[in-house]
Every structure is written in C-alpha cells, then in structure tokens.
C-alpha cells in the first residue's frame, strides 16, 4: 500500500506537455524529492496531486483516495506549503493558524493545544502574537510549515521550501522537515532545484526534465550510477580520443574549453589522465554530486537561479493588501 501512487499522470496546457506520463510509488514516512530545473513540471505535478488542477490523462491516488473522484478526501489528508507566501500579513501568526484550523475542521477542543504544538515545533512560540507583516522570509516559511501540519496530514507537499532563504535558515528548515518524517511519520514530497537540498533531505529522488522522470533512486545510488569520480580539466587542445581509450574513463564531454569525464578511482589514475589529455591548464576532481548526475542524464546543467518570479521579491510587492 503506497501513500502516493500515480499511473501515467499527464498534464497538457494547450500544446505544451508540462507533465508527461509520470509513474510514482511513494511509501509512508518517506521524504521524496522531485528534482529538476524551473519549468520541468515539478509544481504542476504537485498541483495535480493536491487536486488544485485536474490531470489531462492518467491517474493518481493520495492517501488511498483518487485525486479526481475524491478530491475533498484527498484535501483532508494533505498539507501544502506553497512557493509564494500564502498567509495574511495583517493577521498574527497564531491567527493565521487558527484560520487554517477552522477551514480544515480541526476539532475545536484540540485547536489550542494543536496550535501550541506546531508553534513549538518550528520555534515560533515567542512571535506568535506578532503580525506576519513583521516576519522575515524564514519565519514565514516556518509558520507556513507549521500551518501545514495543524490538521495532521498524512502527506505534506513542500514546493521549493527554501527558495530565497539564507543558508542558516535553510539548515533549520531541513532539520524541522526531517523531524516531521521521523517523529510524526508524515510523508513529505518536496520539489527543489537545489541539489544539496535533495542530497541532504531526501530518501529518494526523482529527477525530472521536460515533464518526464529521467531517473529515480536514492541519492547515493544515483551517484554510484556515474561509476566513478568526476574529473574536470581545462585543456588547450584536448586529446579526447586518447582519453576515451582509457579503460576506467567514461562519459567524456567537452564544453566551454573544458573536458569533463568520470573515472573510477580518479585519484590513482590522475597522472595518466593528465598525460593523455594534452596541455592541461588546471584540473579538479571530486566525488560525484547530484548535479553531476543531472548533467550526465540531461546533458545540461541545472540552473541555480531564483524560481519563477522570486519568492522574496513577490512577497515585498504583496506586503499590503
């Protein structure tokens, strides 16, 4: 029994196929990452699973309920933390939680205890009576994370949860999210285009490009697939043919005057690689990261840039209603 299961899930906007026949099986308590560049179809996939938009084709079930036919049941079982701020600035943090609890029909008897609990979980007890206008981006995210938990959802969707946040706040958020899955057994589905986020947080990762899943596994297994360390050489006239002949070398790629290749035990073979490559100006070797996996699978580097529109920027424009 999977918490989330999709079969051939597809979404088309006119001629554009945003999500193309996605099959997923996600187990309870997993932190599952959807990794890919902006516009790869991550948010669209999430929106379909959360019943915000109907699929064009295929099926999906969340917590045992079909997203098309039992939308309301699905919604009762999920929490969603959106990419953009989704709380009312003029209300206090606690009031925003109260609003959410009422909308989800949280039992009146437990409402105050629940709000205390989640506020404590994200360390916002001290600021709960401040209007959210005065919250920083990180505090706001934490409150929205807490809010997503108020009604004890089985599945929590986090859409780019740390977009535009500083490194320290990101670390904090990651530890809260980890605590959720270990302590509360919540299944967490997270979209991100940050490789480090996926590596640090996720049990399994699906790499999405152009609406398709190109790979799905644990971060470690994905990296092992590359079959070695990544070596990057800056060479004047690279002798690509000679490099390709080496037994332990795989996947030689040339771009922008640099040669990237994967080599088993690169440390031991580095001298030979350097000799064959030509006149090397600089060399760099590292254990593979998800970024290398992505590069290998899609042939293009993931764009480490602000998401669509920019979280903080939009927040500032919407400060006043």
């Amino acid at each position: 029994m999977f918490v989330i299961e999709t079969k051939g899930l597809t979404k088309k906007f006119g001629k554009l196929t945003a999500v193309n026949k996605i099959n997923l099986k996600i187990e309870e308590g997993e932190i599952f990452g959807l990794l890919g560049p902006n516009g790869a179809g991550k948010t669209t996939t999430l929106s379909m699973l959360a019943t915000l938009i109907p699929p064009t084709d295929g099926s999906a079930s969340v917590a045992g309920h079909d997203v098309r036919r039992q939308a309301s049941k699905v919604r009762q079982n999920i929490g969603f933390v959106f990419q953009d701020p989704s709380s009312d600035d003029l209300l206090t943090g606690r009031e925003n939680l109260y609003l959410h609890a009422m909308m989800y029909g949280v039992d009146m008897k437990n409402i105050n205890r629940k709000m205390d609990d989640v506020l404590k979980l994200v360390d916002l007890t001290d600021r709960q009576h401040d209007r959210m206008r005065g919250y920083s981006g990180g505090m706001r995210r934490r409150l929205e994370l807490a809010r997503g938990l108020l009604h004890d959802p089985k599945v929590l969707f986090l859409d780019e949860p740390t977009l535009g946040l500083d490194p320290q706040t990101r670390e904090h958020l990651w530890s809260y999210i980890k605590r959720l899955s270990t302590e509360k057994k919540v299944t967490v589905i997270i979209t991100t285009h940050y490789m480090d986020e996926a590596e640090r947080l996720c049990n399994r990762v699906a790499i999405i490009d152009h609406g398709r899943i190109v790979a799905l596994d644990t971060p470690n297994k994905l990296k092992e697939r590359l079959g070695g360390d990544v070596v990057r050489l800056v060479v004047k006239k690279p002798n690509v043919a000679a490099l390709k002949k080496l037994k332990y070398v795989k996947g030689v790629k040339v771009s922008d005057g640099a040669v990237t290749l994967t080599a088993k035990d690169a440390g031991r073979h580095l001298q030979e690689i350097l000799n064959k490559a030509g006149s090397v100006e600089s060399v760099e070797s590292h254990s593979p990261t998800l970024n290398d996996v992505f590069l290998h699978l899609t042939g293009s580097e993931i764009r480490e840039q602000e998401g669509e529109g920019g979280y903080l920027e939009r927040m500032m424009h919407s400060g006043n209603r």
Partner: protein
Amino acid sequence: MSEIGGLYALWYREFKVFLRERSRLISSLVQPLMWLVIFGTGLGSSIELGASGAGLDYQQFIFPGILCMTVLFGSLFFGLYIIMDKRVDFMKEVLVAPLSRVTIFFGKVLGGATDGTIEIIILMVLGSLFFGIHFTLYSILITIMMVALLMVSIISLGLIIGSMMSSPEGFGLVASFIIFPLFFLSGALFPVKNLPAWLYSFVAVNPVSYTVDAVRSVILGIPSSFGMITDVAVMIGFAVFMIAVGTWSFRRMSV
C-alpha cells in the same frame, strides 16, 4: 461541519483585516462626507428640487443616494482583494482546503457585507447628527434591508470580476466602466420623475435605482417612484441572480 467552520474562518479573516486596516474604514467615509458637504452644499445653494423634493434641501435629498453610493463603491472594490490573494498564494491555501467553492464564495460575501454594514451604520449616525436626517425604527430597518441586498449583489459582482481577472489594473478598468453608469443612472443625485424618456429608461433598468428609491422614500418620508413592493422585489431578484452567477464563477475559478 468543516463547511460552517470554513465559512466562519473566511468571515473571521475579512473582519479582522477590516478592524486592523483603519485606512479602509476612514477612506470609505471620507468620500461620502465630501459629496454631502461640498457637492450637497454647493449645488444645493443654487437649485430648486421642485414638486418631488417636497420642501427638502438638496443635501438631505441626496443623503440616501450617497448611502447607496458608499455601498456601491465599497462593495465592488471588495472584489479587488481576491486579486491580491491570487497574486500571492493565499488563494491557493484557501482553494486547497477541504471546502466547497460555494462556501468560499459565501464566506467572502459575508465578510464584505459585515464591513459594509458597519460603514453604513456609521454614515447613518453621522446623518442624524449633522445633516438633519430623522430616522424611525421603520426607516432604519428598511434602509438596512435594502442596503444589505444591494451590498450582497454588488459584492458578488466584484467577486465575479475579481475571479476572472489577474491584475488590479484590469480590475480597475472593468470596475470603472461598471460603477459610474450604475451610480449616475441611479437617481442618487437627482429626482427621476421629470427625466426625459431616454434617460428614464436607463434609470429604470439599473437595479441600483430601486435601492435608492426605497431608501429615499423611507428616510425622507416621500412617496416612492417605483412603488415599495417593486423596489424590494427587484432587489431580491438582483441579489439572487448575482449570487447564482457568483457561485458559478467561483466554481470555475483556477489559480
């Protein structure tokens, strides 16, 4: 049960925001007071109302019309707030909740109508204190009932426009094309009895005219132009129609 909780939650939010955003309340009162004091005195000093004016001064004559104008502007622009909600993800947070779209629509209408009713009661108090308007229990009740019907209708209209638009500028454009004809052709500023036929026919198809007519009749104690029963019936019909279209537009709204 969560539908009722949700209705309460949405109302709670609108009401809290209304109480906190004082500028909203103040600006909603400044405009009608300027109309009454400046326009009412200025134009009133140089015109005679004739037979249908029944010996009233112009300021008192337009007071009921200005009440309706306040409802009209305040209610229509209430729809602007859902565009603000859509621009951030607040609207998604509401739409992903296990609530029906009908509940969400009514929560909004109820919230807006509460805000508007408070504004109207303040204006009525000011009217009796400074503009020589005498209220009776009957005129208070009928005024509030008619104004509430107009409010619900126009808030629905604002929400319909808001649900279809994605930019505040677009909303403003559509709203100004709607609001000025509704206001100027409602008889808020002039008696409708002696109008030329072409103008009268515009006034007669404007639902707002029927609220102005009824409210003016009960507040000033003058006979109504269309008949009280017609006024009430038209406004109930208008409100039901706008609510129906409003719930439909919310069902098909996407973010």
